[in-house]
């Protein structure tokens, strides 16, 4: 009944994450992703119908969440020169990267 992760699943996930796995890394990853399925099976022991997901703990009662949004105002951001100083390759205004080639 428990779905098993395949090597193709691992390769697809790696592609999505822009990571390349070496051949010897793949079996370990298959194992790790299967462990995720075990975790999910455990969570499915709990009935959460009618339970809203908790993405922000600060929304809980007494947790100190902010009740209002800030004013929609433009304020200065980082100076461009400072930011571009950290770029691997730049013309000063843009980040330069290799050509995008259609697959």
């Amino acid at each position, binding site marked *: 009944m428990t779905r098993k992760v395949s090597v193709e*699943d691992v390769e697809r996930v790696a592609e999505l994450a822009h*990571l390349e796995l070496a051949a010897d890394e793949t079996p370990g990853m298959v194992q790790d992703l299967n462990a995720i399925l075990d975790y999910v099976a455990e969570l499915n022991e*709990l009935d959460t119908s009618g339970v809203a*997901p908790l993405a922000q703990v600060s929304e809980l009662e007494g947790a100190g969440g*902010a009740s209002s949004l800030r004013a929609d105002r433009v304020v200065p951001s980082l100076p461009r020169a400072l930011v571009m100083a*950290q770029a*691997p390759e730049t013309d000063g205004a843009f980040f330069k990267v290799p050509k995008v080639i259609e697959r």
Partner: protein
Amino acid sequence: MAGDTKTVETFVEKPATLARLRQDIASGAVKAVDLAGVYYDRIAALNSQLNVYLSLTRERALAQAARVDAMAAKGDPLPPLAGVPVGIKDVLVMQGAPSTAGSKILQGYRPPYDATVVSRLEAAGAVLLGKLNCDEFAMGSSNENSAYGPVRNPVDPERVPGGSSGGSAAAVAANMAVCTLGSDTGGSIRQPASFCGVVGVLPTYGRVSRYGLIAFASSLDRVGPFASNVRDAATMLGVIAGHDPNDATSSPAAVADYAAESDRPVEGLRIGVPAEYFGEGLDPDVRAAIEQGIDSLKAAGCTVKPVSLPATRYAIPTYYLVATAEASANLARFDGVRYGYRSPASATLSDMYSHSRDEGFGAEVKRRILLGTYALSAGYYDAYYLKAQKVRRLLAEEFLRAFAEVDAIVTPTSPVPAFKLGEKTGDPLAMYLADIYTVTASLAGICGVTVPCGTTPAGLPVGMQVLAAHLKESTAFRVAQAVEAAQT
């Protein structure tokens, strides 16, 4: 300057208290510039053995120290941390100073801005010595995942300091800083504090700004202080806590005078002890030390009662799904485009992304990114990530119900004392408990303090974790200080 003589060399040295330093600097007995010099000398003597600091911010530190000395000389009132030497975990940015997050992918990166906590420390007069070693992107519990080599535990350099804030904990334990800042996502302040025998604080989620913290898991990450005693940890929290318009999750709730609150007696407080944290896998020496600590709370007039947290075991799958999913999203920005490492000679943009990430990230980071990507991928998001966030609400609500019955919940911070480098901890039950002890509070957003609570017969530190409800750091500090007082 020397530590105790034992069969294994130890580098433990207790820093002076903030109160003592304040007195000395205000009176002129100690010059902040000289004090910074003493700390840099000690760092020079010990860092090659302990690998605590990754970089030093000497110019900035000495300029700040000179400003403090000028204020003291004029007799001006001194800000709360005037002249205090502080270390900063390398996941927090200091403008113009290297910030690696313990990773090769940010080698050479110099951030263009200061983290809010850095600005606040400096406004309070602190002298920021340098950047502290940590597990890569805060992922790990032994500081063995740093791309720049492990940190060694000052108590026993053959052992780990814990992680991910291993450098932050070790620095205080070895008096290579008076206080430090670290970060905690699933235990990364509490566990190393416990392993190194120092105080560590997990502030309520949102209590301290995350602006300038290189993100791991945005709904879990917290910045918090380490110190050699509870009162000083409370003072540090008071300086860094408070609303920040640059952090949309930061809380507008008022900041208490935590140091003053920590002095208040604990008589009449109700202390909860959860059976789920005292089961198989807990080292008997750790258990004995914690039980002594609990007895001291009874002697101080607390009521100790059992509490039940039956959903505790679900914290592990919940944490692994939530933390890895959020990490995969946060680490997507490291792609070689705008900053950090870019792999040379990539023919296409797509190759540049994957080569830069492959070459820049360590194995554990890659592993967690892949797990998280899987949990979020199309077709699985609802069943995996969203399900975990629903269980998270159940876990949080269980804590809230417990805090209606008790003021604080106490547990061991770690089921085992510091293990040897390369060993991890052999017992799977112990590893399971190690996660349980800390990720539960992480998921619920509640606060806690870990306080030294004795040692094992072999001399390894044991920490007690004192948990309190959201924004009730004062209660946690009070109880922790009572435990600390009973140790002397």
